């Protein structure tokens, strides 16, 4: 049962990644990343070897649902409303193509994890593969999108992947490190949101190509 659920959650994470890759609307992306936050919060319950008890299950779950599924999407929603970013910024790689790339990445990471010698260490290689795919897809989003909000979401995918990878390989992480990472993330997103608002006020756009011009 637990095994099946793990596979289901991992698949849903992969599908949400593909959804993020394929959606042109930042609001839709927000829904996707919030859904991913909810999925993440289920994961700690599915890894049975927690030795340090219920607290180490509940705390990451509660943290990820409040921070990743509620707070961060809410901040980003606010900033989207504020800057009223329209989705006219075409990505460097088109949406359908990036979804296909994402699909191949996901398949490739399964093959890759299968080849790795340490796969027996991992409790659920399936989840590990999903996490590995998420890392690459997060990078893909960051590198192909021009819209700052989309890039922040890419960063979140990347960060979620770290969480999954950690939990699927070691199953326990010291609790305070977990909390620390989450709070860091929250602060980071908060800073980014403020920065984006400022950038918008300054340039009347959140396209990153304008920032390149700033460099010169």
């Amino acid at each position, binding site marked *: 049962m637990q095994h099946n659920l793990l596979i289901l959650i991992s698949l849903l994470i992969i599908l949400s990644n593909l*959804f993020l890759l394929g959606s042109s609307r930042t609001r839709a992306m927000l829904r996707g990343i919030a859904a991913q936050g909810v999925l993440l919060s289920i994961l700690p319950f599915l890894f049975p070897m927690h030795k340090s008890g219920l607290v180490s299950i509940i705390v990451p779950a509660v943290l990820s649902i409040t921070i990743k599924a509620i707070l961060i999407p809410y901040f980003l929603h606010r900033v989207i409303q504020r800057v009223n970013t329209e989705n006219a910024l075409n990505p460097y790689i088109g949406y*359908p193509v990036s979804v296909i790339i994402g699909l191949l990445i996901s398949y490739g990471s399964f093959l890759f994890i299968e080849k790795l010698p340490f796969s027996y260490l991992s409790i659920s*290689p399936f989840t590990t593969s999903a996490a590995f795919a998420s890392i690459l897809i997060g990078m893909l989003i960051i590198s192909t999108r021009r819209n700052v909000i989309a890039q922040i979401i890419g960063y979140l995918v990347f960060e979620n992947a770290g969480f999954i990878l950690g939990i699927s390989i070691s199953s326990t992480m010291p609790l305070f490190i977990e909390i620390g990472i989450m709070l860091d993330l929250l602060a980071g997103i908060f800073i980014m949101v403020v920065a984006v608002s400022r950038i918008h006020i300054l340039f009347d756009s959140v396209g990153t190509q304008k920032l390149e011009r700033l460099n010169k």
Partner: protein
Amino acid sequence: MIINICLSIAAALVLSPLLGGIINKTKAFYAGRKGSPVLQLYFDLFKLFRKESVISTSATFIFQAAPAIIFTSTLAATIFVPFIPGLPAPSFTCDFILLFYLLGLSRFFLIISALDTGSSFEGMGASREAFFSALAEPVTFVTILTMLRLGGGTSIQAAFRGLSSESWIIIILTAVPFFIVMLAENARIPFDDPNTHLELTMIHEVMLLDNSGANLALMEWAASIKLWLFSLIIVKILLPAEILTPAAYTGLTILAVPAVAVITGTVESVMARASLLKVPQLLFSAGIIAFLGFFLSLNQFLGW
């Protein structure tokens, strides 16, 4: 085998108009209406068969022959998906290609009969139908290939093993895109609106605009047989054949096919029709899910 073929055809002929009625009743329920009777489609067919056909003077023999060809080829496709298990069924290597190309044949004649009338509306409908079905076809074949890989055979019978404990996730990843394809192929919301009267937005219905009387009845009947066939395939993808006795399997099939209609009606009620520009995206996402299922079926990742 003859018995099974006869049974399949009889079931498709007799039961298929029921599905449209169930879908409409479901939609009426969500809209807070009483709705038309479940048997309305039977009444309509009966009425249409007694009416005479008016044929446009600009139409050629293609237009007149098309309804019969569409009807027979759709009906012929049903024999590969037997209604009752256990009995010998027509089956040979790669028969699924024949199945879907029989449906393709009927679509081909639907399209050229629409073009044959020379109406600008029907021309637009035909072009949309051709475009969207071309997008739906690869999804169909990927789902069938996945099923075949799991079933370990090359005929469509092998694909119908149903849910099992080790491959349930792949089955789900196949049934969902196939359901989306079913909605697209049968002109349901979000792809097309079967109830609309607005010619400019129609896909399937607009191609029937010039048909009347018995010809229209054949087209409508063929459309409901197609819906029946797709619903039956979905049910067979899902129902675990190995666990159930033939009697239980048949009973569950009889229950599950209307359930597919109810689900379709629910989807139609909670969703608005997508813009035609979004249709390729929807089919594309279905394709992505289908491919994910296909990839998972290639290796033994699920056993991890």
